[in-house]
């Protein structure tokens, strides 16, 4: 199988590392060669963060480059716009509708673009937008918005539901498992 690429983008502190671990677990359980690439350190401090996930028969580079991503999972609208050039032709974007002003917008040095999702759709891109934050709060905590998005993205990938649930069980601490399963389910429903 040709190598497939997924990008998880968001704002430092939003929980993209857990998301990549869940997807990595799913892919490894299906027998793929898998590589994940994460960013630690300075940019985690509220900066724009990117995690790459690649899988196939044999994966070489752990990073995704422009025009290569089959799916972009975005935890924040503006980040979807920032990385849209990385999307492959015919690729999908799964994004949270959450918006977080970056510091240059807060200080007035830049403007947050309006209707980001509408403008991405107007480009002919398949965009699924979900209010992951509200759904996560419904599940019990805003912190689970990453798992809500996993629920959404599971509908864009061809793996059985049980595989995802098993990955959740292996990646999430036991005491938060039920909450995260609920978050995942709300994500699945939002994808429809």
């Amino acid at each position, binding site marked *: 199988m040709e*190598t497939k690429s997924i990008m998880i983008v968001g*704002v*430092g*502190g939003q929980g993209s590392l857990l998301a990549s671990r869940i997807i*990595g*677990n799913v892919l*490894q359980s299906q027998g793929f*060669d*898998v*590589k*994940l*690439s*994460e*960013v*630690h*350190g*300075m*940019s*985690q*401090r*509220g*900066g*724009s963060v990117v995690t790459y996930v690649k899988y196939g028969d044999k*994966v*070489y*580079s*752990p*990073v995704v*480059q*422009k*025009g290569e991503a089959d799916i972009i999972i975005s935890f924040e609208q*503006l980040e979807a*716009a*920032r990385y*849209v*050039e*990385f*999307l*492959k*032709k015919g690729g999908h974007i799964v994004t949270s509708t959450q918006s*977080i*002003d*970056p*510091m*240059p*917008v*807060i*200080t*007035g*040095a*830049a*403007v*947050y*673009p309006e209707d*980001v999702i509408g*403008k*991405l759709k107007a*480009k002919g*891109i398949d965009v699924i937008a979900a209010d992951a*934050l509200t759904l996560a709060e419904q599940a019990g905590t805003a912190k689970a918005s990453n798992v809500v998005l996993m629920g959404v993205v599971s509908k864009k990938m061809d793996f059985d539901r049980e595989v995802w649930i098993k990955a959740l069980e292996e990646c999430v601490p036991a005491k938060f498992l039920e909450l995260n399963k609920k978050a995942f389910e709300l994500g699945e429903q939002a994808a429809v």
Partner: protein
Amino acid sequence: MNKLMLGNAAFARGLYEAGCTFVSSYPGTPSTEVTEEAAKYDEMYAEWAPNEKVAMEAALGASIAGARSFCGMKHVGLNVAADPLYTAGYTGVNAGMVICVADDPGMHSSQNEQDSRHHAIASKVCMVEPSDSQECKEFTKAAFELSEQYDTPVIVRMTTRVAHSQSIVELNDRVDNGLKEYKKDISKFVMMPGNAIRRHPIVEDKLRRLAEFSETSPLNKVEYNDTRIGVITSGICYQYAKEALGDKASYLKLGIVVPMPEKLIKDFAAKVDKLYVIEELDPVIENHCKALGIEVIGKELFGMCGEIFQSGVAEKILGEKKEVVSFDEPVPPRPPAMCAGCPHRGLFYCLSKLGVYVSGDIGCYTLGAAAPLCAMDTTICMGASISALHGYNKVRGKDSEKKSVAVIGDSTFMHSGMTGLVNVAYNASNTVTIILDNSITGMTGHQQNPTTGKNLKGDPAAAVNLEELCRSIGIKSVRVADPYNMAQTEKIIKEELEKDGPSVIISRRPCALLKYVKHNPPLKCDKDKCVGCKQCLKIGCPAISIHNGKMEIDHTLCVGCGICKEMCKLGAIGE
């Protein structure tokens, strides 16, 4: 058993499997997790040292004592540890000694883009470079073998993309080596001129034998496909080249990067039509090839700066570029910022308001240089804030002494700021030093340090008392401020700047991300009282924004630190 592992975790697994029993490191992105993961194996003693020099000396001591030992650091940390490294190249080892140095092409988390291969060459030790997690483990084990066989420390060079990528690793059992016998050997381990003179030819011979070994070592791999294009590469660049070129090229992948083979390279070069060297940062392999009289294309195509990626290889060698969809409007940048509730914010707002010269240092607080605070004039290297301000003040005199401060974190102060402060006291510098004590090493992801009262394993440890330490080295005025109380903090800074003689202010408040820190409920803005004056924006809090002319607080980010409340003269902010 196969496991998806971070390169750094696989490195730690390699230490475990190789029977390493001593680990001493100083944290630094992207190397930190090697030591954190190593600490999870009970079979290995693991510690954080106050700096890389101490870590390397401790590891060498353990090796001399007969234990397989390890120390880890980022590229700039190796500069700090260069002194023991260069002499360890001469003494050699008893049991194997392996060093991790993690370079950061692209500078994701660093102040420069130096290439550590130069250190390996200059210190006359061996260096190997893995390209994925499996190799991180295997090369670490091979490094211990090489270390013992050739009587030398061996460096395993990591780069960010190898250190912080996960790939599948096959796990093996640990081999317990026990403690080797220690035999007193003055001629080998006491490096005074008479002995070092006799060691140097032995060191040169070691390098010659290592180079000979590299001709046939399985760590160097040749892979013939289409021979119209040949690629010599190592580490992550091998992965980029393979992805971009596949079977369209033949490869010589160097696992041993110092010293490099000659015949292997010449033979490979003779079999391919056009030869490229694909390496990030400096032209180390390229210059080696050119010195052998081999024609290669390298830096002229790929440049010296940043990362290369598969896209760079495809574009430069094949002329291929992927089709992209763009967003039509400018997307505002999202630089890193101090977290909501960060204790550094209050202090830097005071410094920004006072307009003083700020001699900065390395840590989360370097973000004090970012807009809107912009309260920093210099950042050089770990520990430089205090010493550089001393020099600045000595030449500018009274004029600057009353209008300048040095800022340094607790861990950085322990690392190499202390000696700068000794210099300030000893040479009577009229200098104000602010130690930002947030009870943790923040930037690298919460490591303990000698001031926190806990060791790497989380057990209780002796804690340095910063106030007593400063007084004992001769600083008479030592005061503590709470940066959540900006009025008090500003008052203390002003008073200390007015005084003659060196002084220290400890700005003390734990990092807001520490699990044990209890937060207040998020604050809210009373929209009726808010007039949209934007005074609250001056502190650069990521939880605060203005929408429809009124302040808004993001309840998912706010931890109720109250700094913004102190900014609002209209009392619009409350619980």
